[in-house]
């Protein structure tokens, strides 16, 4: 197996720019990532894409969008999964030696779709869709369970909401008590792209992990997030590190409660202390997490890109995660290390 490095990345976050089509947004961001990596499209050995037909409102959306992601005449794989999962597959392509350079891209344009209705359509038709379930409804249930179980969550949520108060309320999902506006995602048009390579760069992929929970939400441990715990543990073990080594945490979560619980699931905070860690913000999602712009299935790749940026600004070791629909059923985790971390 060969080592894998992150050579370039780019993220674009916007809203309803009518002068740009979805393919324009993808093209712009992918070109920026290639430019950041100093790689041409012709040099790419493979392309892995994360996109959802329902999110894009286009049947087999990657048929329309892949060429905007530099996939013309390329070894291309399309995933209806979060971008972090696409990253794991891209890592495998390079690590195995099948290609030298791989582009991973993911996107979602919330301004083009009825987000709550699409979220509702994701649920199965027999036992959950007739009961008004959405992704944000599950997050509301996680939040309620957190408040009932961890008294500290209520104490720290106000401090967090104050940090995230500057947000456009029209771009947040329908309310799901106990969630408040400052704890909700801000729907956005998001594209993220990462270039992976076998040639050494300052940021190396040290470990990856993936895991999946049951579909039935009534079977799940909504607080412990066992799939994220497993994925994070796999990635850290592969990297030969423990969570305490990670000074950079970029954890995907639909709401502030999801981000806080994610911190606990990966071991970065004790049970019940995740919201306090998030409110401090320096180590975990300092850009504002979901409040800085959110649209599935790009968010895991956004978190990975932000982790890389923080490593290049002085961080040492990063854990980044991405969670998929439905309601964070599948989780992917990535450990990135700056040269000083992995060359010891």
């Amino acid at each position, binding site marked *: 197996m060969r080592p894998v490095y992150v050579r370039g990345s780019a993220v674009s976050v916007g809203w309803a720019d009518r002068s740009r089509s979805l393919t324009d947004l993808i093209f712009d961001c992918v070109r920026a990532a290639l430019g950041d990596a100093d790689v041409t499209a012709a040099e790419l050995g493979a392309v892995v894409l994360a996109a959802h037909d329902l999110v894009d409102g286009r049947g087999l959306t990657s048929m329309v969008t892949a060429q905007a992601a530099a996939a013309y005449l390329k070894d291309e794989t399309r995933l209806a999964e979060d971008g972090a999962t696409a990253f794991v597959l891209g890592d495998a392509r390079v690590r195995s030696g099948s290609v030298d350079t791989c582009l991973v891209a993911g996107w979602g344009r919330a301004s083009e779709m009825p987000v709550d209705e699409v979220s509702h359509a994701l649920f199965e038709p027999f036992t959950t869709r*007739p*009961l*008004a379930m959405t992704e944000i409804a599950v997050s509301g249930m996680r939040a*309620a369970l957190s408040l009932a179980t961890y008294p500290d969550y209520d104490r720290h949520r106000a401090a967090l909401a104050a940090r995230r108060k500057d947000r456009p309320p029209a771009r947040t999902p329908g309310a799901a008590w106990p969630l408040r506006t400052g704890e909700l995602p801000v729907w956005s048009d998001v594209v993220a792209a990462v270039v992976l390579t076998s040639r050494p760069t300052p940021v190396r992929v040290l470990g990856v992990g993936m895991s999946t929970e049951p579909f039935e939400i009534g079977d799940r441990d909504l607080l412990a997030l066992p799939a994220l715990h497993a994925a994070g543990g796999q990635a850290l073990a592969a990297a030969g590190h423990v969570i305490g080594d990670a000074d950079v945490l970029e954890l995907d979560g639909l709401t502030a409660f999801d981000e806080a619980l994610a911190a606990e699931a990966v071991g970065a905070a004790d049970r019940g202390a995740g919201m306090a860690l998030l409110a401090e913000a320096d180590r975990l999602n300092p850009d504002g997490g979901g409040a800085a712009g959110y649209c599935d299935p790009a968010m895991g790749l956004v978190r990975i890109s932000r982790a890389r940026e923080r490593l290049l600004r002085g961080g040492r070791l990063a854990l980044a995660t991405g969670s998929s629909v439905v309601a964070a059923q599948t989780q992917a985790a990535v450990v990135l290390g700056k040269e000083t971390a992995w060359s010891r």
Partner: protein
Amino acid sequence: MEPLTIEGHWNFDYTYYAGESASRFFDELRHRRIMGSTCPDCGRILVPARGFCDTCFTATTDWVQVGDEGTLETFTILSTSFPGLPEPPLVVGYVMLDDASTAVLNFVHGIDLSDVDAAGRRLLTRPRVRVAFRDECEGRITDFSFVLEPA
């Protein structure tokens, strides 16, 4: 030049096959029984009843009727309106019915929602609820809901 936008709409008719286990679960609802299926390996009683335990990857065996009371494990109060569904605000929650090993989702009634915060605080106490069936059951998950027991 004014940028062009066009409206789009998806409206397809699907036919979903419930399969043997779910069909039986929904048929039991017509008779006002909530059924679970037992995993022979882990011993859990899975509700709604299903054909296999995904934790053990084993086919379930015995079917058992679970209790008509339980504990509201978690919930949310929704304000989003969807076509064909009751008008919000709605309380939906997962209830661990007595004798069951997994929680089942449904609407929760019997709480005053004129003050949503007060209602939420009451529900955070994980109250006991009971199952209430509709007068006319038609073999759907909406044949029943949960009703809050008096405090």
